[in-house]
């Protein structure tokens, strides 16, 4: 047996993230004692209609979220308990809503910082209705082997260590959340464990006090002794002592009180829980409480450390008198499934990786590119081209190569609004489309006819150089197998109207006195093709391609230089249109050759 929370307890949780976390802890306990999840519903208006996923064992249970308590209890008539995880400013309204529901008998409030008046009103309302209002600031309620309400009991391992999977003989009532767990642990080590442990909350006026719970424990035959952990301030402990001393009680009462340090502190200095405030004229002091408990016949160890042995002594007496028997521990307990991460850490499983990377890792405090921390690259003077070198070709390129890449990017960053890429971005921007989609619209244009010839040009020039072809052999090979030479030819530029960008790049690379076999070959090809037709010149794609192959970049990465550089321009066009607040554009009819059939009658549908 137990009090407040038992095998029939079914729960609605009022609140958001903190409530979901509590549900997860409660599910761990349900899994440990091999019972279905006690949480049946959440009430959280912002997410009403959705579900919260709660892990149970290795599976997930979807728990519905409702807008009101009434909806929750209508759909889940077994619900009889509510846990309140709502913010302090709305907690009273939520608590009242739960108390007013005819199905709900117990409301436990976890919220901290609830105004005193609100807590009193909730407590009074519950008493009027004959219900239990526990808290505020309660860590929860747990009945060993039966039911857990809230996070009380801690992590799964602690539930097992504290033997919460089966009933003991000790009831526990504390204000402090942390100490509730400590006492549960002590009861499991020095005695046979607990029946029910209740965190009543550390506020000045808990909704339900020690006496009400002592009365319940007195009427629970399984509970043989009750441990209370008190603090200075208020008169809850005095009332408990009064109750205990009033007549012969079946349960033993063991109590400790904190706050003796108050006697040697500067006057007026108070600390601990909100409720730990000494009253006038010494009432509510640790000493007066401790004395009252002793006088009532309770066992009062001198210090917290002496609590364990005192509990042990009480337990031995209970054993001797035959009131309790040594508990039988179950042979096997369920173990909480480990997450994949935990299991891997313990070398228990091996997982075949889904993807493999050879360039980048951000699992530490900053990203590393091919092993080099980004901050160190910055501080040692490396620049964007070096990052490109690392991520695209896994090597730290030279200062000189970096300068070439920088120039290539500067030359190809934009080419006016009329080319396919920029026009695509502008069209999208004018339609009110966002930055990333508009830039993507421009990037989509990059292909065999626009900007996408760099890789192919590089591939074929390299093929020719690697195979020591002559220009004639190369042109024949291309004609036979592939068609026009990528990187040769321009829509508007020609021998008479040369491309300044090409001249600039070739001039710079040549000035460096480095070996440029591909570039030399490409220029030789131009000599032949430009004679045939004066716009068959080496274009900027072809020039970039040849230079990049010459400084060692892999052929497959070459289009990337154009894509990356041109993205700078595309972003510029989008921002430009946005700032001008450009309007939607459409083609004028006179720009379209309407070559479709003339208007005609639609035949009947067959």
């Amino acid at each position, binding site marked *: 047996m137990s009090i407040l929370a038992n095998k029939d307890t079914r729960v609605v949780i009022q609140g958001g993230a903190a409530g979901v976390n509590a549900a997860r802890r409660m599910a761990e306990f349900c899994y440990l004692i091999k019972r279905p999840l006690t949480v049946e519903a959440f009430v959280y208006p912002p997410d009403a209609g959705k579900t919260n996923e709660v892990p149970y064992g290795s599976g997930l249970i979807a728990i519905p979220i409702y807008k009101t308590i009434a909806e929750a209890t209508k759909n889940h008539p077994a619900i009889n308990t509510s846990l309140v995880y709502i913010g302090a400013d709305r907690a009273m309204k939520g608590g009242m809503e739960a108390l007013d529901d005819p199905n709900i008998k117990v409301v436990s409030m976890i919220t901290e910082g609830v*105004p005193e008046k609100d807590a*009193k009103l909730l407590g*009074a309302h519950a008493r009027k209705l004959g219900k239990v209002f526990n808290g505020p600031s309660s860590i929860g309620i747990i009945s060993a082997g039966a039911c857990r309400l809230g996070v009380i009991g801690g992590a799964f391992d*602690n539930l097992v260590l504290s033997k919460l999977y089966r009933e003991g003989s000790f009831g526990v009532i504390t204000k402090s959340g942390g100490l509730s767990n400590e006492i549960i642990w002590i009861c499991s080590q020095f005695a046979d464990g607990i029946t029910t442990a209740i965190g009543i909350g550390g506020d000045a006026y808990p909704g339900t006090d020690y006496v009400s719970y002592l009365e319940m424990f007195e009427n629970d035959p399984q509970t043989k002794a009750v441990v209370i952990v008190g603090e200075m301030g208020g008169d809850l402990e005095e009332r408990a002592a009064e109750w205990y001393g009033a007549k012969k009680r079946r349960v033993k009462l063991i109590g400790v009180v904190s706050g003796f*340090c108050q006697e040697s502190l500067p006057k007026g200095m108070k*600390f*601990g829980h909100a409720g730990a405030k000494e009253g006038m004229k010494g009432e509510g002091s*640790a000493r007066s409480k401790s004395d009252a408990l002793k006088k009532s016949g309770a066992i009062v160890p001198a210090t917290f450390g002496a609590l364990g042995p005192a509990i042990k002594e009480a337990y031995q007496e209970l054993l001797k008198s035959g009131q309790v028997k040594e508990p039988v521990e179950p042979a096997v307990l369920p173990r909480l499934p480990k997450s994949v991460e935990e299991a891997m850490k313990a070398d228990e499983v091996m997982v075949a990786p889904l993807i493999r990377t050879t360039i980048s890792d951000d699992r530490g405090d900053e990203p590393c590119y091919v092993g080099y921390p980004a901050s160190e690259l910055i501080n040692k003077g490396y620049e964007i081209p070096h990052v490109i070198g690392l991520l695209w070709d896994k090597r730290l390129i030279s200062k000189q190569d970096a300068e070439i890449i920088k120039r290539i990017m500067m030359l190809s960053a934009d080419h006016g609004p009329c080319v396919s890429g920029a026009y695509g971005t502008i069209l999208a921007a004018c339609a009110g489309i966002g930055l990333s989609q508009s830039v993507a619209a421009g990037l989509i244009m990059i292909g065999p006819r626009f900007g996408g010839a760099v890789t192919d040009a590089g591939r074929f020039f390299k093929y020719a150089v690697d195979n020591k072809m002559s220009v004639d052999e190369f042109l024949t090979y291309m004609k036979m197998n592939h068609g026009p030479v990528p990187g040769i030819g321009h829509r508007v530029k020609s021998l008479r109207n040369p491309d300044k960008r090409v001249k600039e790049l070739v001039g710079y690379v040549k000035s460096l006195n480095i070996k440029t076999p591909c570039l030399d070959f490409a220029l030789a090809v131009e000599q032949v093709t430009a004679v045939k037709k004066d716009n068959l010149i080496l274009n900027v794609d072809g020039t970039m391609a040849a230079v990049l192959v010459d400084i060692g970049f892999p052929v497959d990465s070459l289009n990337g230089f154009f894509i990356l550089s041109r993205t700078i321009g595309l972003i510029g066009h989008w921002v430009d249109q946005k700032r001008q607040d450009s309007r939607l554009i459409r083609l004028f009819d006179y720009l379209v050759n309407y070559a479709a059939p003339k208007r005609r009658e639609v035949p009947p549908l067959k």
Partner: protein
Amino acid sequence: MAKVLEGPGMGLMKKWGIHVPNYVVVTSVDELTKLGQANDWMKTSKLVAKAHEALGSRFKLGLVKVGLDLNGAIAATKEMIGRQVGSITVSQVIVSEMVPHKEEYYCAVKSTREGSEILVANCGGIEVESNWDRVKRLCLEVGQAPSAGQLEKLLKDAGFTGPLAKKMGDFAGKMFTCFDSEDAQYLEVNPVVTRESDGELVALDAVTLLDGDAKFRHPDWNFQFAAEFGRSYSKDEVEVMAVDSKIKGSVKFIEIPGGDTAMLPAGGGASVYYSDAVVARGGKLANYAEYSGDPPDWAVEVLTEKVCSLPGIKNIIVGGAIANFTDVKKTFGGIINGFRKAKGDGKLKGVKIWVRRGGPREKEGLDAMRALKDEGFDINVFDRNTPLTDIVDKALQK
């Protein structure tokens, strides 16, 4: 509980129709001089000047001057502003009119478990303190306001008769309305006096404690709460409070000058048991501290730095019960960072550190603490199998 100084306290009473003497709160002599020109009562009435700070025994300290004229009040203000009392610098002075009166009475409203209690006595001032049996009480359930009949009976019990009983009943009724509407926890007026000029009851001196947790529904609480222990908060205390107000969970820090045992325990409940254990062992606390509710590691780190900066400490008690949901590894991570910083700054020389803790990821957290030994810390680490406060016994063993 949050204490409110006289000025704002009287402001709240005035708001609910309770007569209070005319008063001004000033921060400089100039301000008072200008106010003196603007307000007739300051020229015609006798005045009282008091340091407007959270200080006990102001009379003894010479920080209350009575029977002054305006020039006298200006002189008193000049003398008080900027005076240093312990850690408090007087920055405000409240100047109020003296209310000539003969009889003094007592009225208070206090919070009780069931609701509230109205207290009245037909004597006031120091007299009521030595005649506490003359104080009569009316207990009220939460949500219940006193009826005219109840007040009448209370006043009769307390020995009030005739028109004065009626007036005092009104006064107590207004005190209750103020208490209830302002989420007060304690309101005390001692003395209540009959103003000779018009026969009205006036609140001469007020103690006001409000429920700080209810601040969210009182947008007009535009005043600061006063420290409750007769001194202002130190710089480090204010810094920890600022962190506390920003985070999930909490960190708390109060300095106790002259101590040598520093406290860095977890939990509002356990922290007091640790403090008790230190006192019981004959140790001297250097501070109170506490972190709870799974606070972020950086907040615990700030708290740790403050604890390590306490002067003259010999031991640091990093205690804690078995946590429910506070992540031991994460919060200990904050403490470890704080220790390292303090050591780097040349602190912690000859200081012994004592650790005991349980809870989520306790093994990892305790292992990380143990590893500090290799970095030259004098640290002793215990797990859940060592009873809660045994580390204090070990630390303070002679």
